[in-house]
């Protein structure tokens, strides 16, 4: 069966099944969708443009804090706040990206500078009383108000993140087949050669950065509305950055379905190992680290890469 058919079947299941799922499974599914979404957003810059960002938490946090502060202080609905957050994040991404790309940072150097930016934002958030400092921001429980991105029960949130994830996949697919996509792939393979061939590497990379950071910020707003609590570590901490890129890498960076596939494997894996390896604290993460090393070693192209290598019936 072609990849499209599988994806279609999966989508149908994802649309129809959740109302019948027990609450615990629905929660896991929402996590899967969220991390897959973040992976897809990261993938645009990391997988397609080949710029490996270790600090996407910066955009996640900007999105979360922007929409939440606008909601709590000015009563602006998070649906709008989300867009504002995305724009701010994109602006920050362009700023950081311009500095980094203009000064020729590539590979691990680029990764490290993105990590530094995210950490700096975290420290600023911790020391800013107006944003709640370490106590964070709580979205007080309230009666459901769909216009304010507040729903009763989990199911509506699920469909929101499903829509976001599907949207991110669709955007990735369009990107892949667009001129920008081709340019990015050329840059990823060999930036100098691409430049020599007339590609405006700086401009292309910045476009990828803007899209990637905008989308990541939307995920931040979703998180804030769903969990109703954010603080500097949850939003700007390295865990968020790593979550996003792991889904993409394990699933297959630079592929359309990779991040989502990666999340479908990794998220339940960490849940299962936590449940199965109860007893001593740390065993589950230890196993997770081991699995990560094994996956990286034996599936360097990620899961999509492994699937593609299978011989197809002609």
């Amino acid at each position: 069966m072609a990849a499209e058919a599988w994806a279609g079947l999966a989508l149908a299941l994802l649309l129809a099944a959740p109302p019948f799922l027990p609450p615990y499974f629905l929660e896991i599914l929402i996590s899967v969708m969220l991390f897959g979404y973040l992976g897809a957003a990261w993938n645009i810059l990391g997988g397609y443009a080949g710029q490996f960002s270790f600090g996407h938490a910066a955009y996640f946090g900007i999105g979360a804090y922007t929409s939440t502060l606008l909601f709590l202080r000015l009563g602006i609905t998070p649906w709008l706040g989300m867009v504002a957050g995305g724009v701010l994040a994109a602006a920050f991404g362009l700023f950081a990206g311009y500095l980094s790309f203009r000064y020729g940072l590539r590979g691990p150097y680029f990764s490290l500078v993105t990590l530094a930016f995210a950490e700096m934002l975290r420290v600023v958030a911790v020391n800013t009383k107006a944003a709640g400092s370490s106590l964070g921001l709580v979205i007080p429980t309230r009666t459901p108000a769909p216009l304010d991105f507040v729903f009763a029960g989990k199911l509506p949130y699920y469909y929101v993140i499903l829509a976001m994830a599907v949207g991110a996949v669709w955007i990735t697919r369009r990107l892949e087949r667009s001129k920008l996509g081709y340019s990015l792939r050329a840059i990823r393979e060999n930036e100098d050669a691409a430049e020599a061939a007339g590609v405006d590497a700086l401009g292309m990379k910045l476009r990828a950065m803007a899209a990637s950071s905008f989308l990541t910020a939307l995920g931040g707003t979703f998180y804030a509305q769903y969990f109703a609590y954010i603080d500097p570590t949850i939003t700007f901490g390295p865990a968020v950055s790593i979550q996003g890129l792991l889904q993409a890498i394990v699933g297959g960076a630079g592929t359309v379905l990779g991040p989502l596939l990666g999340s479908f494997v990794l998220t339940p894996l960490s849940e299962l190992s936590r449940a199965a390896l109860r007893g001593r604290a740390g065993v589950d993460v230890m196993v997770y680290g081991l699995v990560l090393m094994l996956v990286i070693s034996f599936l360097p192209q990620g899961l999509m890469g492994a699937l593609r290598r299978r011989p197809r019936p002609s």
Partner: protein
Amino acid sequence: MRRERVSRRAFLQTAGAVAALGALPAIGRAQAKEVKLGYILPMTGPLAFEAQLSLNGLQLALDEVNNAGGIKSLEGAKLTLLPGDTQQKVELGNSEAARLIDQGVSALIGPFSSLVAYSVRQVTEKNRTPFMLLAAVADNLTEGGLRYVFRVQPNGKAMSTLTMNNMIEMAKAAGVAIKRVAMMHEDGNFGTTMGNHVESFAGKLGYTLVQRIPYNLKSPDFTAELSKVKAAKPDLLVISGYYGDSKIIAETAAKLRIGVHALVGLANAAYSNPKFIADNRELTDNLFDGNYWHNPQSPRAKAVFDAYQKRFNATLTSHGVQAYTVIGVLRDALERAASTDRDKLRDAIARTNLADHILPQDAIKFDDTGENANASPALLQVQNGRPVVVGPARFAEAKPVFPVPKWHG
């Protein structure tokens, strides 16, 4: 392993009760019931160790009540404890709470993490189930007009204001006025909460906060921060921190001869921690700490400590003390309510006036937000390698050493 034992015990108790019900001939007399209580704790995950300590305290208290004949006003109904594991996650906290409520618990105990508590209290409120907070310290948990949330231990505000007050009173008794206070706290949720209180109550308690320094708890060096403190010439240095950072601060402060009358921990994870004291004898001498504790003057407390030691082969800690007390409050309320009905139980809890407890405070009474109105931290000082209670005066087991010479230049 211990967890399985507990579950099996709970199961056996329930099974035993059911079997007894079946065996008794129907003589027109009300059968002995059981009262189901549920707990939700992070039994797996990084806080598993502390959660187990709390569970031990719950279990000890429970068995004590049952062995003494159960709830008399319910014809000797025994207490049973149904388990729940939150893994420190909000979603699990909610689902476990919902599950236990479905299984008919009269009250819920837990959940450690303030974040989890913030969410679970809505579940318990919706289901009109009394929720006895355990270890969750955030002040906002009792806000919002909820009727079913109760907290026995002192919250952040009580912890800070009463500790500062205890120090000021103690200093006054020694002829020293506390006018200038410096505070260092870790920059996370815990430290910032304490710092905010110490700052906002400065005027009311009569001191000026001359220096407030949040710090990153992973930092290996605090010399620069402590120099700033020394330059501000405070009378006291208050520290809300965790184990490692508190150690480095105490170490460097001593060497800098920071010039304060005393170093005071505020809910500090290290300064009244017996293991920390044992590992760092010379360093910890005469450190103060305002923290959760038991009443050392209470003969019942001594009996409880002995019982705990005998059963678990370990020393009772504050976690266990708080858990033990929560069961005591529930038992007392059940006796007065004479019912397992949740609403009646809730009303009985709200009217609690319990003097027979082992905490360093007057009677346990709840205000209309559900906080223990008389909650009081103990003021401890390390003397001869042991943390001893030196305040409030009526609970003290030793006289404080104040001012502490080693901090002076």
